[in-house]
């Protein structure tokens, strides 16, 4: 039984009258106009923090400035954000999850396409993870591609084996935020500041964090797509 939510046009419930629409549209238009004016009042050249990033890039352990900001200069935000993702899954599971979709055997197109695409998606994810150090890429991008692979896998009807659905799955889900917290505490003890990587190992440590995060992100997003709580014991 699937929960079908059709987007009906609001004919059945009370539809917003034209008067109400105008009453709401006018203040919103005013806000929009004000913000548009603000946009145009920004100075045409403003370097922001890019100068400081460029100066310190050599000490960050990576050569891609966005990765440096995300994993080094502002790594604490990234730590919290991996927790946000895990929390969303916790919230979904606390609600009891949605109905688990039935496992179906895929049709021929999905079957052959998934066999072709899945290995490629996994390879692309690994590549994106590795290349993030010196070109656009990194944990989130790789994690998203991994999640796409996961979604494709779920669509073919595959489900995680019941033995792996309890602790092992949870360990992978926690790997990202857990690695971050562990790294944060260790660097605090060794270097004196939270998330201060020792200079010569910064690149390696960032790669370790990103790998853990990639797995977590991929599995968490796939779990969010599945909606239901994976069965962790046989129903008999």
């Amino acid at each position: 039984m699937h929960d079908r939510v059709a987007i009906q046009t609001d004919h059945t419930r009370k539809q917003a009258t034209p008067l109400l629409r105008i009453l709401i549209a006018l203040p919103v238009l005013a806000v929009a106009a004000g913000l548009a004016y603000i946009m145009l009042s920004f100075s045409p050249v403003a370097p922001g923090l890019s100068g400081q990033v460029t100066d310190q890039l050599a000490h960050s352990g990576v050569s891609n400035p966005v990765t440096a900001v995300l994993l080094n200069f502002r790594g604490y935000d990234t730590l919290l954000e991996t927790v946000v993702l895990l929390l969303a899954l916790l919230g979904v599971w606390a609600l009891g999850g949605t109905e688990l979709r039935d496992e179906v055997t895929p049709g021929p197109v999905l079957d052959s396409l998934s066999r072709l695409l899945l290995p490629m998606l996994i390879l692309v994810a690994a590549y994106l993870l590795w290349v993030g150090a010196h070109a656009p890429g990194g944990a989130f991008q790789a994690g998203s591609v991994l999640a796409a692979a996961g979604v494709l896998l779920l669509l073919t009807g595959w489900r995680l084996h019941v033995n792996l659905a309890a602790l092992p799955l949870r360990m992978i889900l926690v790997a990202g935020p857990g690695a971050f917290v562990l790294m944060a505490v260790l660097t605090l003890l060794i270097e004196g500041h939270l998330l201060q990587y020792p200079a010569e190992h910064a690149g390696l440590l960032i790669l370790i964090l990103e790998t853990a995060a990639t797995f977590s992100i991929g599995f968490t997003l796939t779990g969010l797509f599945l909606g239901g709580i994976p069965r962790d014991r046989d129903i008999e």
Partner: protein
Amino acid sequence: MNSAFLYALVGVGLFSLGLYALIIHTHLLRKILAINVMGSGVFLVLIALAKRTGLAVPDPVPHAMVITGIVVAVSATALALVLMLKLVAATGHAELSDDQRESQ
């Protein structure tokens, strides 16, 4: 630097459209979509104005902020969608009726 301001204005437009849709529509799925459109608007403003560095490379800090923002938005949307599905399963329709009167 004109393209930066053009995209920033588009961002403002998206934010405002989303805001209007959020208030007007009663169907929950539309409200959730409206929130996402608003989010895209804010991210667009962040990215567009980052182009004003005067160098070839844009300012990376807003880019990192937007990556964080996208992850947060995805998480929130996922939770919102499952909440909506649970609401539909419990009440039969995907709208927030005026429950103040019901519970009195």
